[in-house]
């Protein structure tokens, strides 16, 4: 039996309508989850290819959520190909990888040298990956709880609890590193 013919003009129009406007957001989110510009670009390309193939089955509702889910699946496949051991305990291993990347410089020295915003950045980078990624997506990239949940593959309640715990950790990290004097940013 012959395969059903794909209407390429409809496919092209749907891609232009739903995917193209989200390219910049996709790239920002990809930067947050890969922490590497080259990997981010590859991940967005992979996401766009998958979206193009699936676009005629997309109902047109919530394109960003749909694309973020595609990106999440693409990222899982990429990690699986590169580092199969990550699948055994993704959270623990992602924490370990984040620790490998983290800056070992003395936090107090960094505050004095680079100021409050650098101290916040340092505090953010010191968080375990599952907390850091939620803060990156919601507070830095301004995604909604639901959009962050879509890309992370967790319920919105989990996004909220991780976000709240992450901010509390950032606050404590700042207090310990001397970023506040009398409770105010230095």
């Amino acid at each position, binding site marked *: 039996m012959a395969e059903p013919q794909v209407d*390429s003009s409809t*496919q*092209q129009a749907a*891609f*232009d309508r739903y*995917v*193209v406007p989200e*390219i*910049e957001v*996709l*790239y*920002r989110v990809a*930067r947050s989850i890969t922490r590497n*510009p080259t990997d*981010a*670009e590859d991940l*967005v*390309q992979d996401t*766009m*290819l998958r979206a*193009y193939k699936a676009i005629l089955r997309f109902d047109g509702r919530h394109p960003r959520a749909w694309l973020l889910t595609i990106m999440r699946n693409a990222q899982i496949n990429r990690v699986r190909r590169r580092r199969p051991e990550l699948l055994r305990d993704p959270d623990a291993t992602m924490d370990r990888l984040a620790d490998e990347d983290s800056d070992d410089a003395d936090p107090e020295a960094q505050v004095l040298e680079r100021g*409050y*915003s650098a101290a*916040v*950045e340092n505090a*953010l980078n010191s968080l375990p990956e599952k907390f850091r990624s939620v*803060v990156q997506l919601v*507070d*830095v*990239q*301004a995604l909604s*709880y*639901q959009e962050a949940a879509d890309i992370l593959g967790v319920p*919105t309640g989990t996004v*909220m609890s991780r*976000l*709240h715990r992450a*901010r509390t950790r*950032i*606050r404590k990290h*700042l207090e310990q590193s001397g970023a*506040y004097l009398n*409770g105010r*940013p230095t």
Partner: protein
Amino acid sequence: MIRRRWRRRLSSEANCREVGRALQSYLDGDVEPDFAAKIGEHLEKCKDCGLAHSTYKEIKQTLADSASPADTDAVARLREFGRQISGN
């Protein structure tokens, strides 16, 4: 989305414990308006809660300001890639 548990809590005046639990949801605009008003009143009167609120607000604002502009070259390459995919 406003969570159900913050809808129920409409006692005459919010206390420190209630405000502490709801503070970050309040910061994200994720509490019912009535309760948000009570939290706002409490934050004006209570020094400790007010300080906690301003600290979290400062952190949230600093994080938002840290978003670097998207790499325009990368975004341009991705747009071109999109054109190639869809044959434009």
